[in-house]
């Protein structure tokens, strides 16, 4: 597919990150001798999207939808089976040497669990300075200065650099993780459920902080989450994933107003109300997400879909644009 296959993008500037036909299949083996392969898990199966500079793309889906594998592919923790990820127009699969280091410097990640993502034996200052030590030859003093700068950006005092992670609460740790992700003038941060593990009152702090940082620094986010309200709040555009595929993609407000794909609609019905008087329809989908090892034929959602037609079981729908910037993979449209 050509770059024109990302019709969602409204802006004309070149995208920062472009994903095309990205596919990751994991072999499934049983531990016999010799090892026997019994199939493939199609964790990610041909997804396309693009992220513009300064934009937040939300990726939402339930467990097994492939959102975590997607983030691993972008972070070069896994190699794709096929398809391409382009950063600044360049395929990251071919990166080596200084180019690879540049990518490593400009793309960072914040994980869900702030207790596991900070090394317990390093001081906060060392943790934040690590990317600087890898990518720059700044003096110790210059490093400390930069660390103080990013600590200030995330609303922490410079003195905390001397402390160890266990002296902080979850929200503060997540701020430290964000500071570390920002320290090398990062251009894209993958936020992998960054607020799911935090207390309610702290979640809003971190979300506001992230939005503020984006407005100030122009950094792009890929925000991965499972809570519709949270993802919709922070994202400009949202990609809804189901069993390794993007089933719908739209501007976040448009998606909230007019969800088209039956799965997206089900997610909205399942979303918890903000008020006891919010009208709610009865959840129409039943059952659980099938195993990615043997996904259903045709449209992968059809066994759970309340609106399934006979062709859905045979014919896999292509994702097509139904309104400017709004695409959906469903035979209904």
């Amino acid at each position, binding site marked *: 597919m050509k770059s024109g296959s990302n019709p969602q993008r409204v802006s004309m500037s070149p995208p920062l990150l472009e994903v095309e036909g990205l596919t990751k299949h994991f072999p499934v083996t049983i531990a016999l001798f010799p090892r026997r392969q019994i199939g493939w898990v199609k964790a990610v199966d041909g997804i396309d999207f693009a992220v513009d500079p300064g934009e937040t793309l939300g990726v939402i889906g339930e467990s097994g939808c492939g959102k975590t594998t997607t983030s691993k592919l972008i972070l070069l923790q896994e190699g794709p089976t096929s398809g391409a990820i382009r950063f600044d127009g360049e395929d990251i699969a071919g990166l080596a040497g200084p180019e690879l280091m540049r990518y490593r410097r400009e793309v960072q990640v914040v994980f869900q669990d702030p207790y596991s993502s900070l090394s317990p034996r390093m001081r906060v200052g060392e943790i934040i300075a690590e990317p600087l030590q890898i990518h720059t030859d700044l003096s110790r003093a210059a490093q400390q200065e930069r660390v103080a700068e990013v600590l200030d950006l995330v609303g922490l005092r410079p003195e905390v650099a001397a402390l160890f992670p266990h002296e902080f609460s979850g929200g503060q740790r997540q701020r430290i993780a964000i500071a570390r992700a920002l320290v090398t003038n990062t251009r894209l941060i993958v936020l992998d459920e960054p607020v799911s593990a935090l207390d309610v009152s702290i979640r809003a702090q971190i*979300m506001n902080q992230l939005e503020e940082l984006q407005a100030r620094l122009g950094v792009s986010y890929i925000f991965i989450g499972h809570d519709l309200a949270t993802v919709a709040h922070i994202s400009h555009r949202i990609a809804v994933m189901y069993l390794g595929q993007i089933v719908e993609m739209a501007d976040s407000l448009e998606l909230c107003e007019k969800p088209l794909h039956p799965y997206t609609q089900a997610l909205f019905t399942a979303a918890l109300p903000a008020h006891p008087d919010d009208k709610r329809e009865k959840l129409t989908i039943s059952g659980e997400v099938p195993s990615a090892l043997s996904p259903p034929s045709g449209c992968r959602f059809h066994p759970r879909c309340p609106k399934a037609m006979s062709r859905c079981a045979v014919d896999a729908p292509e994702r097509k644009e139904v309104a400017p910037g709004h695409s959906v993979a469903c035979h209904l449209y």
Partner: protein
Amino acid sequence: MQPLLEVTNLETHYVSFGGARVIKAVDHVSFTLNEGETLGIVGESGCGKTTTCLSIVGLLPPAARIVGGRIEFAGKDLAQLSQSEMRRVRGAQIAMILQDPMVSLNPLFSIYTQVAEPAYYHRSIRGRSLRQRVRQLLDAVRIPSPAQRMREYPHQMSGGMRQRIVGAIALAGGPRLIVADEPTTNLDVTIQAQYLDLLKELQQETGVAVIFVTHNLGIVARMCDKLAVMYAGKIVEAGAVRDLFNSPQHPYTKGLLGSMPKLGSKEKLFAIPGQPPDLASLPSGCAFHPRCTEAMPRCSIEEPGEIRVQSAKGLDVAAAVGS
């Protein structure tokens, strides 16, 4: 009518080794729950909501002790019962659903054994009727083909199904009260919705009362009749769910509601500043005052008493502001 559960001035403290440090995890908590009602207890980690529940079901860790107050359940004070008396109440009349179904189920026993156990012990059902009962229970929690499933083991089931099994175990003894501690936290969104719907239906069928412990106000909005908001071991506001959502009085409740992202709105979230306090060294006066946007000088000195708010009927608030 006599309420099913009446908790009065409950105090549960964690006492450190040698008594050097006392943490007041639950500090003068009172609430009532009627037959068939659902109470939501909301708060952040360390606010004492879980300890409150563990006090009710009598499963406190060794370091924790109920030091005051009454837990009157169906005319008995649970706080005074011995371990063995409590065992007879638990499972038969009060059941508990925990957050992680993986931990709640024993991987070595079949589904049948685990669901049958409370019915066997507490209702003395045996033999064929026990099998019948288990099948009914699995049916009730929407487990497909229960006759076959009850021979299986926990690892053969998905997370959503396991949590429904835990629900079946909770129902097996025919309880009058179920205490559910964040039962859907580990479930996917659509599975969570299915589970909540199921709980609601079961509650309507059996008339069991439910205490829902959660940090998620959305669950409260969907499930509960009454709500108690806890902060630093105390209930800071309590009342009917609708009243609390419509006109929250305590600044903490207002903050919690403001920090919930709303679908289709990009409005900046209201973030309560600061961190939840350390229960071992609480701020003076009102424990919330350092984070409160409406704090006054007296808030750091005086602990606010309980006030009944006049405007909305049946709403209890403990707040010094606006009084």
